[in-house]
């Protein structure tokens, strides 16, 4: 009988178990990024920067050269890499605690300088690795281990919308927020990643794709309901869409 391959794992990822909790969407996002790097023929010239948090071990998963950065510093590390390796495809992979709290300065200034790199930003509204503390992206009234009665605007402020904020930075070239809660949105998310790396390889400057993600363990909701929760609660506050696209304008160079 003749067999036909209809699906195989991407060689953009190392063939091994991931360290993520069951039901977490990091696995899907890893796969999409790995597929894009592989399909665009970039995996052999890519340099990825792992951050601190759940994705700290991502240097074990992406099938390319990787460097592990201190908490929040991935865009600065990637700046150093890209400046000395301008032909490489350089990306960071960061969570919302890493990027939107401790590393806010680094991502804003990398965008501001128009660093020709791609940021993969995974927003699940909580600190996962450390056990479910409040993040800058935690929703109002959302319960975490450091907001046990729910996040209150007074004292903790309202959740930060990173894509909207970076859209005000002149140096940023391409910003899009996507979700991976169903196959339709996964396909859309993959297109966004493709666009981001195209922007970089065309030397058009800074690109960031923000993913609405889930954290079933620390949210205390099962994986399916977590996806539903993200659609019902996160997307209304963090609307999906393209927040900036200046690729049609003059190149940054």
């Amino acid at each position, binding site marked *: 009988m003749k067999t036909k391959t209809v699906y195989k794992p991407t060689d953009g990822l190392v063939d091994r178990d991931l360290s993520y909790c069951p039901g977490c969407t990091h696995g899907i996002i890893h796969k999409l990024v790995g597929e894009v790097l592989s399909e665009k023929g970039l995996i052999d010239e890519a340099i990825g*920067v792992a951050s601190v948090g759940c994705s700290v071990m991502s240097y074990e998963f992406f099938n390319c*050269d990787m*460097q*592990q950065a201190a908490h929040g510093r991935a865009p600065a590390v990637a*700046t150093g890499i890209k400046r000395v390796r301008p032909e490489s*495809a350089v990306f960071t992979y960061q969570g919302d605690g890493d990027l939107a709290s401790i590393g806010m300065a680094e991502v804003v200034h990398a965008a501001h300088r128009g660093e020709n790199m791609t940021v993969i930003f995974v927003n699940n509204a909580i600190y996962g690795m450390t056990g479910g503390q409040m993040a800058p992206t935690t929703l109002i009234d959302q319960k975490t281990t450091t907001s046990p009665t729910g996040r209150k605007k007074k004292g903790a402020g309202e959740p930060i919308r990173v894509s909207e904020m970076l859209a005000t930075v002149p140096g940023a070239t391409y910003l899009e927020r996507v979700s991976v809660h169903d196959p339709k949105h996964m396909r859309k998310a993959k297109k966004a990643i493709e666009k981001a790396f195209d922007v970089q390889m065309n030397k058009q400057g800074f690109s960031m794709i923000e993913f609405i993600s889930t954290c079933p363990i620390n949210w205390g909701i099962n994986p399916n309901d977590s996806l539903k929760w993200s659609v019902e609660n996160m997307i209304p506050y963090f609307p999906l869409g393209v927040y900036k696209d200046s690729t049609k304008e003059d190149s940054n160079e």
Partner: protein
Amino acid sequence: MAKVLMKGNEAMALAAIKGGCDAFFGYPITPQNELPEYLSYHMEANNRIFVQAESEVAAINMVYGAAGSGARVLTSSSSPGIALKQEGISYLVGSELPAVIINVMRGGPGLGGIQPSQADYNQITRTGGNGDMKVLSFAPENLQETVDIVKESFDLADYYRNPVMIAVDGLIGQMMEPVDMDKPIRKINLPKKDWAATGESKKRGKRNKIVSLHLDPYKLEEHNLALQKKYDKMIENEQRYEMVNMDKNPEIVFVAYGSMARIARSAIEMLAEENIHVGMLRPISLFPYPQKAFDNLPKETKTLLTLEMSLGQMIQDVKIASNGKHNIEFYGRTGGVVPEAEEIVHKVKSILKEAKS
């Protein structure tokens, strides 16, 4: 080659270019600003990388990224800025990445002041950042020595795969002296950087990962023991010092480095006019501390007078190196006050007077 008259900070900047620095990442802070200012023009003119980062923290992490990609990288700062960089320096050590760090020291603690100081001694020689880490560090006393060490440091960083810090104070950064920029330095055979994450995994046939994380405590211990072997090698090979006036078998020997050693030289001359012969042991490497110099002190030497522009941070190392063989005295000024040679002369005389009574 002909000597040129240069300001310390600019001479260090040019020395970095001559030493093969590929990239500079820094953030403004007094009293080192002429260094990045010089490089902002000259790095680009030499087809190399210059980035003014958004903070010291970002700058050292850019250094970490560029060094991980195989480049020869420099950052410069001053005491409070170096404190901010310590996390990144710890990552460089843990990931075994080469980098050169210039620290033009000023007074502290806190924002302190902008005048010359040596109060970073402990920050430099103990563990500035977290973990069992060491940074190869040098404290030159004049611009020629500074320039030579800056040039050599890029090779030493590559050789040991460890950051190297050059600690000068604001005095050396700001003063002008004639220097020969092309004085040859010792040649070191450098291994290929086959560990660097250059984005060439296919060509290389394997992925390179730059990482300081080892979750298994036994793996981390193994890693730290391997790092310790490198520190031991530095202790064996890189102890540097100068002995002054030891042929006079002096009873009192100054222990002083950097600008303090320059002032001590004046005190030695002033005392010699009164027929009091004092020697000087001048550490050039701070880590490794020059234990060998202490082992070679004349047997007539009874007192070591530690001189510092701080409240006495090196004195611990002097005590360890002397190992109870000498009477240890201290004189220092702090907060950016640069002592006069007369103050040191006065201190020597009071030690001699006390010894007689």
